[in-house]
């Protein structure tokens, strides 16, 4: 019991500590992505594994249940792939408004409302999966490049991941 209470007392000051320690112009984390798998059949799920590593010397708050990243996808010619209506919601440029029967309608907002915050220690990582096939108009087989970005709220720097290739086969 005593241990639990001590830990609780540590949590809040710890949270407050994050912004004071992080240097203003240096991002507090890095992103590394990997396609799982790198080649999939057209129409199948395209899953990107994102590893966020705390590169600062202080704790980092992270919500593994939320899609806090932006995703950029380009085709073989280097053109940005068109977003689907749900992808527009994800980008914050649309609400996928649809008219329903009986005077009803539907719309979407970005995010799912999950608010579980984990504390990532310095040099530690958190891994999550992003399924992106529903967000972009993957109509044709071919080779696509994917990059993930995430804004560091403390340094205001947008952190970019490595760029990977995803091949869609007929």
């Amino acid at each position, binding site marked *: 019991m005593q241990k639990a209470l001590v830990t609780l007392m540590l949590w809040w000051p710890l*949270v407050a500590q994050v912004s004071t320690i992080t240097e203003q112009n240096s991002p507090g984390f890095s992103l590394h992505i990997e396609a799982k798998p790198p080649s999939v059949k057209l129409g199948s799920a395209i899953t990107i594994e994102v590893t966020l590593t705390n590169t600062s010397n202080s704790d980092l708050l992270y919500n593994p249940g939320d899609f806090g990243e932006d995703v950029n996808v380009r085709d073989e010619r280097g053109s940005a792939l068109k977003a689907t209506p749900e992808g527009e919601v994800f980008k914050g440029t649309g609400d996928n408004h649809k008219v329903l029967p009986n005077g009803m309608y539907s*719309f979407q907002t970005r995010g799912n*409302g999950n608010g579980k915050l*984990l504390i990532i220690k310095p040099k530690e990582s958190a891994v999550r999966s992003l399924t992106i096939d529903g967000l972009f108009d993957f109509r044709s087989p071919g080779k696509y490049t994917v990059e993930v970005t995430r804004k560091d709220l403390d340094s205001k720097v947008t952190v970019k991941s490595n760029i990977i290739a995803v091949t869609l086969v007929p």
Partner: protein
Amino acid sequence: MRLARALLSGCDVCWRGVGFGCSPILSISGTGVTGYTNPCASSPSSSCDSTIVATVTIDASTPANSQETITVTAGGQNPSGFLPVDTGPGEQNQATAQATTAALVVSILFNNHNLANNATPPCPDSTNSACVVVGQQILLTASVTLNGQPVQLQSQSWDQPPGAITGGYTIDTTTSPPRTGQPVAMPGTGNCQTFQGNCLMFYWLEAGNGSVTRTINYHYTIPGQSQQTVPAIFQVTAPTNVAVNVPTGLVNIAASSPVNNAGAQIIYGGQKGNAGIIFSPSLTPPQGPYGSNSEIDWVQIRSGNNMTNLTPSGNQYCKTASFLAPQNGGAADGDPSPALDTSFPYLTNPTAVPNQTIVNDNPYVALAAGNAETKAGESFVMSLMWDPALPNGCSPWGLSGNTTIATGCTSIPIPLGTVSWSYGCDAINSLVPQPAPNGTTWIAGCVVPQQAGNLAFVPSNSFPVWTHAVSTSASTSYTCKGTPFN
């Protein structure tokens, strides 16, 4: 003439021969013999000449293999006596034989120990299998044997075990997150869960004030005899001093947060120095033996967002589509009942916090541009559970990311209590950029909660139950109409 037969307490014994006469005299004596009847003595008949059926009563404590002496005296008109002895009219002759008692063995096996007629077990005592903990699987197997052979029974049954029990806790791990979670009713239809038959399987959910003696009765009936009852006594223990500290933060409006970057949002906490809600548990482990991997599990059930948007066409009432039935404009698999929140069990800090039992939540609702005002909120129930992780060394329920790892234990997590909580706010679009940390054009019109506080933990034996789940996703779909949803 040979008179030998296994003797059972209270059973009929039959001697067959020739020349007993019509009113033979029977005498039975030996270890444990407390009485016997001889119908041929009180009601002579010709059949008594060849067969005597008597009922022998033997004390229950009579050791097996005790020797009993049976003497039959032929009598009556012209008894033939016992060859080769010559007899005359009106004479009597005797014959003596030895019988051996056999033990009727009734056992109630639990973890390979026979608990039938055991005494009240001490606790703590890891050597006594009848010292058990809540959540531990209680699987009892009864048998009735004679000379090592099963005795055919007319009936057998178990009394309802005292105290709150369950037949199990079923989590559907075929989907991620688990689509359903529910306890198993007792009595049920599963194997060993009908209260009939030779076995019984269940789990205790509580132990009174932390330690209680409980008796489970097994009943059996041998054909032609009265029902017998055999008790098995347990000492049941449970965690004590269970408490949860639940500090709460403030609802606010933000452009983004460590929780998400959904843009303008109503968020409960989610800011540095302002956690929405934290659940910090404490308990004293039970006296009885529990596994080295025993754990606290959290499970949260959410009700879905209710939202009211003030639009150019008036108020529009919206609800999360996955919480509406399809016929009401909901998602194809929409279900109005509360849903599992993201994962089972609820995500704890895997690496950073030494005590991994503390969890938090900072839920939010993204605000849709074009509305003049948005009221939104949601209610939740967080359940605290404890799994003894038995047998020792097994791996209980766990998570890999948000994916459930099924338990490898025979024990189950049992509910200890709940915290009911909610958040909500009224966001007004001022159309004027607000200073940091707000950073949006929205201002909070809400007054709930007015200030940080601390919520109550309510002890309970009720399992968290759900029939659908909210998973991680890139977006949330709402269904709206001009009148409120029921």
